[in-house]
């Protein structure tokens, strides 16, 4: 017995329901089989319900028979600077371990899956609340002694196994524990839980070497559709940095309506790029091309029916839900168009009068669980989609085109005076999104900002130097909560442009 020998300390961070408890049991069982003193503990509690939790294990490297009957005193808490193997089931949990000081360059081997399971604050953000992954990667590189980091969830899924089994394989792979590989294999077999698939996962983790596993797939960008020559020529005439995004935009707009509409899109883009500059890398033109295309392809029921009744959409759903080729898939759409949605696609006058009777016509809004896999359901969707030939006469078309022109005009005038101001004015278009109440609220915010922080300042003699910053903070405020309270505080007082 050697009193200066210390236990090997393993900390496992996982989310409730991910099998961190079983992973801990496997390690404890393997150590026990080797007759090694081992102690583990955990704090499941409410964290079992989707929260973050940890499991802590200490293993003494000398077997009991060499200890003359003494028991090592082992800790119940991980201590900063005293963790040998840090296992994190997900990237943010690795970040949390770093934040708590459990990963140190002199000692800690980090085993972490780099996939993301987003926290509620990241998910519920009105735009993009995702945590900066690069900062985590940098901290990992600087603060851990060795790294076993990759997207191990994909690895597990590819082998039809579970993440905790892959992580066990990686723990064995690090060779930091005084436990031979066979002991882990036996532990999986003895526990008797999904033995075959867990062994597959274990072997995958065991055989992993840094850099050989395929990195996370970049999100598949939709392939830009081809454009008619006449349009393509116009796109090619643009500065090179803009061609990709404008081509996608033009194709989207054409897909939404027709070639004539796509030409209008290009006209509008040209108007903005004319005042843009290479020095600024055409940021104004690029963002205008983006938001203009999204705006011009607004989601009315015609568009939604069109998108939902395409063959590629059917195939995408099959893929997403992992249906096997021979399995029939039945798809029901959750549609509940309200009075406003109907009014939007009706001719202008009719639409307006319908909208005015909104309160009396609530019954028009009913839930439709349309079976888009059925022949009848599909035909109905195609029928709706076919209404696009009359779309130019619709109420919403008229309204959107007018507002787009108003916005573009403001953007150009703003950019001519102050480039940053113009760019911020472009980005405000991101407030126009969603459906129903969400859309109405966003549109309302957009109009308030357009009036008070873009058009109104443009009417004055000279622009305040911080106008771009103020516009930016108003836009951020509008996107920081969905009650509008933060925006109210950020806007000049006398503005009250109500949403229609």
């Amino acid at each position: 017995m050697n009193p200066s020998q210390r236990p090997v300390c393993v900390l496992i961070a996982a989310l409730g329901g991910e099998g961190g408890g079983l992973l801990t049991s496997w390690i404890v069982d393997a150590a026990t089989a080797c007759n090694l003193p081992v102690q583990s503990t955990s704090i499941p509690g409410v964290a079992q319900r989707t929260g973050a939790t940890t499991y802590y294990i200490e293993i003494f490297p000398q077997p009991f028979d060499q200890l003359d009957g003494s028991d090592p005193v082992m800790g119940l808490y991980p201590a900063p600077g005293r963790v040998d193997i840090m296992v994190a089931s997900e990237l943010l949990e690795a970040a949390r371990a770093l934040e708590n000081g459990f990963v140190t360059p002199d000692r800690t081997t980090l085993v972490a899956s780099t996939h993301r399971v987003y926290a509620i604050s990241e998910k519920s953000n009105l735009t993009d609340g995702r945590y900066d992954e690069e900062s985590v990667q940098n901290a990992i590189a600087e603060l851990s002694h060795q790294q076993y980091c990759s997207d191990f969830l994909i690895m597990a899924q590819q082998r039809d196994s579970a993440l905790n089994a892959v992580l066990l394989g990686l723990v064995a792979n690090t060779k930091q524990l005084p436990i031979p590989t066979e002991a882990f294999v036996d532990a999986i077999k003895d526990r008797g839980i999904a033995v075959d698939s867990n062994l597959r996962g274990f072997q995958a983790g065991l055989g992993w070497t840094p850099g050989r596993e395929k990195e996370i797939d970049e999100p598949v960008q939709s392939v830009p559709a081809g454009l008619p020559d006449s349009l393509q020529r116009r796109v090619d005439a643009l500065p090179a940095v803009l061609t990709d995004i404008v081509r996608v935009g033009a194709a989207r707009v054409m897909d939404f309506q027709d070639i004539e509409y796509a030409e209008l899109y290009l006209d509008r883009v040209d108007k903005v790029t004319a005042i843009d500059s290479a020095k600024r890398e055409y940021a104004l033109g690029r963002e205008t091309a983006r938001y203009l295309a999204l705006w011009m392809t607004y989601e009315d029921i015609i568009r939604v029916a069109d998108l939902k009744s395409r063959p590629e959409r059917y195939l995408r759903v099959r893929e997403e839900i992992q249906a096997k080729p021979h399995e029939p898939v039945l798809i029901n759409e959750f549609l509940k168009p309200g009075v406003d949605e109907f009014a939007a696609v009706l001719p202008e006058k009719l639409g307006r009068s319908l909208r005015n009777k909104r309160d009396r016509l609530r019954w028009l809004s009913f839930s439709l669980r349309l079976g888009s896999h059925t022949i009848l359901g599909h035909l109905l969707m195609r029928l709706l989609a076919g209404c696009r030939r009359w779309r130019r006469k619709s109420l919403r078309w008229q309204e959107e085109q007018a507002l787009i022109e108003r916005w573009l005009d403001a953007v150009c005038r703003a950019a001519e005076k102050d480039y940053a101001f113009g760019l911020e004015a472009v980005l405000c278009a991101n407030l126009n999104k969603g459906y129903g109440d969400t859309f109405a609220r966003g549109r309302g915010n957009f109009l308030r900002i357009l009036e008070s922080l873009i058009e109104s300042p443009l009417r004055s003699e000279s622009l305040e130097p911080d106008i771009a910053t103020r516009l930016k903070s108003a836009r951020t405020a509008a996107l920081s909560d969905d009650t509008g309270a933060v925006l109210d505080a950020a806007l000049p007082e006398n503005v009250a442009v109500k949403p229609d």
Partner: protein
Amino acid sequence: MERSFAREVKSLRLGNGDVFHGEGILAITKALLQSGVSYVGGYQGAPVSHMMDVLADARDLLDEMGVHFEASASEAAAAAMLGASINYPMRGAVVWKSTVGTNVASDALSNLASAGVVGGALIILGEDYGEGASIIQERTHAFALKSTIWLLDPRPHHATMVNLVEKAFELSEVSNTPVMVEYRIRTCHMHGRFPCKDNQRPTLSRKALLEEPAFDQERITLPPSTYSQEKAKVEKRLPAAIEFIREHQLNEVFDGDLTELGIICQGGLYNSTIQALQHYGLADTFGKSRIPILALNVTYPLVPEEVTGFCAGKRAVLMVEEGNPDYLEQAVNVLLRKADLNTRIHGKDVLPQAGEYIAEVLLKGIGRFLEKASPAGIDTGGLNDSIESAIHAKTRAGELLAGPVPKRPPGFCTGCPERPVFSAIKLLEKEIGKVHIAADIGCHTFSTLPPFHIGNTVLGYGLGLASSAAVSPALPSRTVSIMGDGGFWHNGLTSGVSGALFNKADSVLVIMDNGYSSATGQQYIPSTGVNYQAQPTGMTIASALKGIGVRWLKTVETYRVGKMMRTLRRALTTTKPGLKVIIAQSECQLARQRRIKPTVRKKLADGKRVVRTRYGVDETTCTGDHSCIRLSGCPSLTIKPNPDLLRIDPIAHVDNNCVGCGLCGEVADAAVLCPSFYRARIIQNPSRWDIWLDRLRRRVVFNTDATSSGSE
């Protein structure tokens, strides 16, 4: 509860010469059986639910031994069960989560402690304190002091803990006093080993009956007996206890060469204390410390001579005591004063007043103690550097990371039937304005966290309705109280419903009827339908409510968000006076999944037709505003990078953990949110008719051949 604890039950049967491997709370369960316990009761709650779960599954073993086990209706009922040990020499143990369970039990505990016991009476407490706790942060110590119940806080070491359970029964019997044994969360879940003894059949049990009931006026808690009982506590029971603790050395002294210093710690904090000393090179792996340590496995009562004897001749002693008030530090100071000793006691001056003593806290606290005491032979100059080097990485990570790492508060599980109720409330509030919501204890308390933030107060288990009593009259609109089915049977039926009816309250109560006490691990409750002996109970929430006079009563399936909204709106606006009760009914999804998964797996393997339902979001129509997420918070409704080159914000996405509850679609409907949600039903092992129809549809609809489309 469909889980099986067969493996754990097996370890309860181990005998002489066997080595037990397992969790702390299971080791304690085994220790009860080794001590000849006659009866066990309790109420579930982390971190001690496991004892109840395993014993409920160990029916055969308990029957063989004649041990009576009962899942008590509440902690008060469990504590009252210990009344069996007042007159009869029966060893009994009850278990619950503390301090909340002890609060509930305290009426019975006071009476029990006053009457005194002849059979050993143990109260096993899971101390839900610190990281991972789900309750208010208080100390059980106060209950021990005020009721004169002895309190053990064993050192986290299986053999020691098991031995102390046996000793606790003896202590209880020699001093005629019930004994509390507290175990912290990490200790309950600590995996370790100990050499077993054979289980002991109880001397009195279902198999060895009492001859006749005993009566003793002295055991009745009514004057004049209460006066003599109070005297007995201090004159007989306390001295007897102190004598036993001293004689059997329940507290442990570990010698060290730095005799001018000492550390007194609660037994439960011994390992952490050693860990911190190891950091400073003052203790070795086997716990050999250079500073002498007195580990108090018994924290009430203290043995005066033990404390003064340990402190005598020392310059400074550190009291390591978690939580506040600092009862032990005060008591030690009083003992030293009385003994006229001048040893300086440190404690909450170098350690925090509040909060769990995790590794880093003790490391810093002991460092400060060493600095203040600066013993000869230790270079205290390097202490700070030593702490700094330990937490250097933490500081550096703070600089490198983009900001505080987002928290992951607990939330409703995927497909939880309680979530839709709060989606409905949130939607209704947009329509009719804010409503005062009196929340309760249970999974539904998660409604107070993101994304719902629903619930204005939490007053205790089953007390949702009672807590709204004075708010209702003070608000223009009715209040809504929440109560779980667990809380309803625990006390809500009486403290809430009958109180509201009696006082003619005009408010709304929503009862979550999911079939189990879900938050603690899906234990059975009266409305589950059966008890642990699989006997039908015939008890329902609705019949209980009707029985005591509730007239406005609606039962709504929770997943019908639209219907739930309509029912709530009606309850809040109807002109009918009185209590309006809505039973929100749907089975706990965790329990349901556990129940149906094996069946589905078997059906699939047998080639039978199975329809798998799940939901999805169309990536082409999702605009990335995430309002669906803010109304749901379902773990499987998440985000993913936008596949669209034009769009930047991540889009909503339903991952493959979806259990097909349909809430996201219902919410999209009820909120007129967005048309992106779809329900997909995948027909596994399709029939010929399914295949024929599918081919026809695909050919007509998409003009594709069924066999070549789809993907692997």
